[in-house]
Each structure stands twice: as C-alpha cells, then as structure tokens.
C-alpha cells in the first residue's frame, strides 16, 4: 500500500511539471510584451524596463526557467508586482475562506446528492425518480452566479434569513461562520449535486440488477440494508470518481461564487490578480489550484482500495 502511494505520488510529477511549464511560458510566450501589458496603457519606456528587470524577463529564457523552478522548489513563488508581498504569503492569508467554502460545499452536495440518487434508483421511473432527475437536469444547466443571485434575492433580501454577502472567519464564532457559508455552498454546489445525483442513480441502477442483490433479497434483508450496504458499496467507485472529478468544477466555481458573495478567498485573489495583471500571483494560484486537484485525484485513487477489495496494489 505504502509503495503504491509513493508510486502514485511520483506519477503526479509529470502532470505538475506540465502545469509548471505552462505557467512559466504563459508569461514568456505571451503575444505582445508582457512587461508593457503589466506596466499599463500609459507606461513610459523606463517603467516598462523596470517591470522587465523585476520579473527577470531581460535574462535568457533557460536561465529564467532554472531560477524560477529552483525558487519554486524552495517554496518561493515570487513577489506580487503590486503589493510587493510574497505570493505564498498572499495565498496563505486567503486560504481559510476558500477551504471552508469548498469543504462545506463538498459536504452539502454529497450529503444531499447521494441519497437523492439512491432513492431515484430505488424508485426508478416512479414520480420521485422523475422529480430527482428533472432537478438534476435543471441543476446542471443553472449557472452558479445566477442561482447565487436568486438565493440572495429570496433568502437574504426578501426573507432576511441569512446574510447577503461576506464571510465570517471561524474564530468569530461557529454560527456566524456557518451562516455565511450556507448560500454560497448551495449556489456553488448545485451543479456538483446534479452530477453526483445522476451518477449515483446510474451506478445504483446497474448494481441493483446484479445477481447478488437478488441473493440479498432472497435472504429477506431489510430494504435499507440491501440499498445502503449491499448496493451502495458496490456502486461507490464511480460515485467517488465523480466526486473527485467534480472538485475541478468546484474550484472553477469558487472563483465566481467568492465574487458574488464577496468572500475574501483565493477566488477573489485570482480575479483581482488577473484584472491587475499581477502575473506572479496568477502563476502561484494556478499552481496551487492544479496541485489541489492532483492531490484530490490521488486521494480518490487510494480510496478505491477501501471500497473494492478486488483492487490490489
């Protein structure tokens, strides 16, 4: 098992290398002069040269790359052009809201979507199933920010049950923290829920037609044991896979959701950095998000071993 994990860790290296290369060349091979773009529309020749020197763009490409990777390996992602703060520090400051939002969305989505999918499969082609699948199709087409505004309009503006915007760090108390996360989590999670509910239903339908389910029924087991142990455990691998794939969806959604709800997380940082063309920060964020995604995939791969005893490493 340990050797498998180590091998899988090594397998992530080429992926991260491609990401790093991409991030590096993103700036260097940009059409036009990135230094000029960064310096802004009314920059002088000197200010452009200053930007170029600051980014090391005046040195040979290979040297730039070696220096950059060397720094990266030491945990140095460079310095923000605007705030002059270390990129790692900027990211660390903004980490908590994003992690909180992602985890709460993951929680809400899985806790709601898996049961919906299980019930839909159990009552296949009945009314409950049709409603659940209609919800899934609609949820899949609903843009995050549109749903976000609808939720804000009703729950915050009309009924005043929850805060309109903003984020309360967990140290300000648990309830304000949770309150500030409910609407963003639902808005962010809807597409994700639709995806999980659909795959759960499909996977369960396939499993429910298997011989061992007939065996379980012939033993007179209670319905919940047949559904939740005999069937769901067998259906779990595709479901967990989709939960993993969906993390990418969440990360994309985080950028938008944090903007709508004015949450000071990595998503806001990304948008701000992009609009200000603060390349070192953008590069660092891409690396962090891609790293998070690769890590999630790794966890998913390892979890298969616990779900299916037939998988051996």
């Amino acid at each position, binding site marked *: 098992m340990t050797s498998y994990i180590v091998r899988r860790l090594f397998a992530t290296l*080429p*992926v*991260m*290398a*491609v*990401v790093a*290369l*991409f991030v590096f060349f*993103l700036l260097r091979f*940009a*059409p*036009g002069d*990135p230094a000029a*773009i960064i310096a802004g529309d009314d920059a002088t020749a000197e200010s452009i040269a200053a930007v170029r020197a600051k980014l090391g763009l005046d040195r040979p490409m290979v040297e730039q790359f070696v220096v950059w990777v060397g720094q990266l390996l030491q945990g140095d992602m460079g310095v923000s052009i605007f705030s002059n703060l270390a990129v790692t520090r900027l990211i660390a400051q903004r980490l908590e809201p994003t992690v909180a939002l992602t985890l709460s969305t993951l929680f809400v989505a899985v806790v709601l979507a898996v049961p919906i999918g299980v019930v839909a499969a159990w009552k296949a082609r009945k009314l409950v199933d049709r409603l659940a699948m209609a919800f899934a*199709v*609609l949820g*899949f*087409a*609903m*843009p*995050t*920010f*549109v749903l976000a*505004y*609808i939720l*804000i*309009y009703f729950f915050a*503006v009309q009924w005043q049950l929850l805060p*309109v915007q903003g984020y309360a760090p967990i140290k300000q108390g648990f309830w304000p923290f949770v309150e500030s996360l409910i609407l963003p989590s639902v808005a962010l999670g809807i597409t994700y829920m639709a995806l999980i509910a*659909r*795959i759960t239903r*499909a996977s369960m339908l*396939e499993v429910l037609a298997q011989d061992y389910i007939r065996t379980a029924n012939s033993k007179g087991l209670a319905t919940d044991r047949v559904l939740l142990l005999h069937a769901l455990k067998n259906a779990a691998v*595709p479901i967990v896979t989709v939960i993993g794939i969906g993390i*990418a969806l969440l*990360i*994309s959604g985080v*950028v*938008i959701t944090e*903007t*709508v709800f004015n949450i000071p997380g990595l998503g806001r940082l*990304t*948008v701000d950095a*992009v*609009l200000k*063309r603060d390349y070192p920060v*953008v590069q660092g*964020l*891409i690396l962090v*998000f*891609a790293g998070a*995604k*690769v890590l999630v995939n790794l966890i998913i791969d390892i979890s298969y071993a616990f779900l299916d005893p037939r998988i051996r490493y």
Partner: protein
Amino acid sequence: MAVVADDLDLPATRRFSLWTAVRRNPTIAFGAVLLAALIVMAVFAPFIAPNDPLKLSPVNRLRPPSERWWFGTDQFGRDIFSRTIYGARVSLIVGLSVAAFSSVLGLALGLACGYFRKVDGIVMRIMDGLMAIPSILLAIALITLSRPGLGIVIVAIVIPEVPRIVRVVRAVVLSIRAQPYIESAIAGGTKNMKLLWRHVLPNTLAPLIVQSTYVCASAMLIEAGLSFLGAGVPPEIPSWGNIIAQGRTYFQIAPWTILIPGAFLAVTVLAVNLLGDGLRDRLDPRLARRL
C-alpha cells in the same frame, strides 16, 4: 436496446414522419426546438429588439419590467429586453465556435494519439497537465495575455475544452484498434489512412457529436462566467455575462437586470444539454448506460 433495433431498419422501408421522430426522441426534439428558437432570436435580433441595446437613456434608469420595457431597464436606462436578445448572439457564437474548433482539434489530436504511440505519450501528458488546471482559471489566465475581444475568449475556452474531446476520441480509437476485424485488416495489409477513413473515423463520430454538445454548453457557461468576472468579452458588447455583471451593484433594487439574462442563459444551456442527453441516448447507448 429498442433504440438499436430501430437503427437496423432500412431507411427505404421506414416511412419518415416528423411526428414519430419527435415521439421517439422527445428530449432531442425539445432541445432542438428550443435551441432553434434561440438561434432565430439571435440572428434576427435587429428586427426583434424594440430598442437599440446600447442607447443610454438616463431619464429611464432602473425601470422595472412594464409594457414599455418588457424586461425593465438598467442603471443607464438601456432596454434589458433588447440587450438580452443581442446577448444571445455572444453566447451562441461562443458556444458553437468553441464546440466546432475543439472538436476539430480534439479529433485530430485524438486520432493521432490513438494511432501513433510516440505522439500519444507526449500529447497525453500535456492534456493531463491542462486538465489539472480548472478551466475557468486557465481561460482567465490566457485572456489576460491579450487585449480583450471575442476571438481571444473563444481561443481561451477552446484550450481547456480540447483535452476532454481528445480523451473521448482516443479511447474510441484504442478500443476499435483492439477489435479483431481491424487486426485482421492490418494483417491483410490495409493502409493506415484507409483504415482510419473507413473504420475508425465513422465510429468516433457519435461520441464526438455527443461530447461536443456538452462542450458547447460548458463553453457558454464559461463565457458568461468570464464576462461576469470582467475578464470576458469587452463590457461594451451586451453579452449575458456582461449584463449580469453590470447589474450587480443594483441587484437589490433592480433584480430583473440579473434574473432575466440569467434565465435566458440557463434555458440556453438547458436546451443544449437536453440535445446532448438525447443524442447520447440515441447514438451512444453504451455511454448512456454509464451515465
């Protein structure tokens, strides 16, 4: 499986009737009709829109929906109805061209990967890397490299979407190559290109069409998201994402500025997704069972 049986009917013996076609594929029909209506609306926008979508009218700012302004006005007094109709153009152009470009590119790369071992290693590593970067982030990063415009938005969305197509096409090619009839054709000395043209390409078509409808829907969502973040099409172009972004500040007093273009966006994406689901059930029953 009944669907497959239908396909075996010879076209000559089947009396074509639009009504039976619709009855058999209600999802495709519904999605197609909805999408067709939206395309007509976009193409004939100048004739349908009662007002100039760009015309400012400060006297009439933030008017709620009424007989005069069906969908109300924004903070500059621009007619939301007209803007929304014009906005369909951006969404559809982006959706359709991203679907077309990424299909062509993805098909070429996917065939190459499935066919040539050497290409496969390199290209798939790059695809894995691209897929590791969340698509909206990748698109934003690409857009910041250039002056804003519709073209760069399309390119920036095509790049993160291509790997999805490549993977589908490559998987089909590999599975077809493993078929006994292809192996015997290779053993019999059939040329690579002929093999590709005769056997492989036709088989990739169905999954490719299905996948590209999903890419189209996803592209529309990404474009709207980019515009909403201020990193999409230039703000002077009335795209749904831009209309929503501009309505943000006044959302609490003028929710229609966001909800109406939002609803159009959702319905458009829904139409394309339904079309995709219907095509998937019809063309690719194997995939349909998995999802």
